[in-house]
């Protein structure tokens, strides 16, 4: 036993953990294509908005949680949420394919996809 008490098995676990971490880092920070569409999923259903068009959307989630989603200059974020956790707000700006900000208590997610807006929410 050394000073911090690591044992042989710990080294194996840590080695596997490092491998998982490297894989995760690649998944997280691998540059992705810039997205085109913001998909907002809420208890009311799914709505799609073009990233190219600035707008502010109010989303009603479960448990009286109201979220304000903002699309500005080709990026989107959850600007405000009445949820105490603020996980979605802290997710920051989203612009690349696959990026997501989610509020689990509200049942709301905001994610970026590559395909352009198809169902009537343009203009």
């Amino acid at each position: 036993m050394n000073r911090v008490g690591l044992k042989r098995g710990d080294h194996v676990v840590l080695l596997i953990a490092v491998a998982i971490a490297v894989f995760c880092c690649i998944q997280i920070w691998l540059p992705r294509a810039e997205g085109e569409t913001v998909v907002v999923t809420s208890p009311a259903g799914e709505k799609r908005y073009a990233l190219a068009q600035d707008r502010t959307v109010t989303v009603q989630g479960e448990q009286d949680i109201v979220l304000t989603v903002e699309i500005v200059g080709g990026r989107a974020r959850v600007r405000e949420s009445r949820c105490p956790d603020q996980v979605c707000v802290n997710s920051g700006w989203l612009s690349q394919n696959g990026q997501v900000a989610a509020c689990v208590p509200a049942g709301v997610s905001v994610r970026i996809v590559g395909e352009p807006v198809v169902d009537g929410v343009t203009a």
Partner: protein
Amino acid sequence: MTRTNRLIVAGLLSALAIALSVLEGLLPPLPIPGAKLGLANITVMFALQAVSVPCAGGIVLVKTAFALFRGPIACLMSAVGGILSLIAMGIARRLWRDKLSFVGVGVIGALAHNIGQWCVAYVLLGSAMVYYAPILLLLAIPAGLITGLVLNMVYPYLQKTPFFRKG
């Protein structure tokens, strides 16, 4: 340890788990969404090692009940994460009791905890959560490492206390 002693210790450790959760909530939030250190897991690991599996399970239950204050979803995530983590740590301890310190157990437990949480989120929110999976997995590793190191360093001193001397 008598039955009564075990019950008292389980109660004390549960109280400590909640105190640690509250303490963690007072720390400035980490810049990463959803990141938590999971300090309360220190008590669960201690219970697994020094008391018994049911005692550790009891702490997880109390912790879960306490999470109800943060809403039913938080409670559900805490429950699934906590139970999965307990199972993983229990199996790890049983299989490699002499080969793992708290660091190895902690990392395994933290990974299992976040996998459990992610599963709840996935069921509730669907495919949007796929992108979030590597973030949660990645965050589990330093969390498990830090809590494990804390217990690794504190445990030898705890063993000198009357709690251990009586056996």
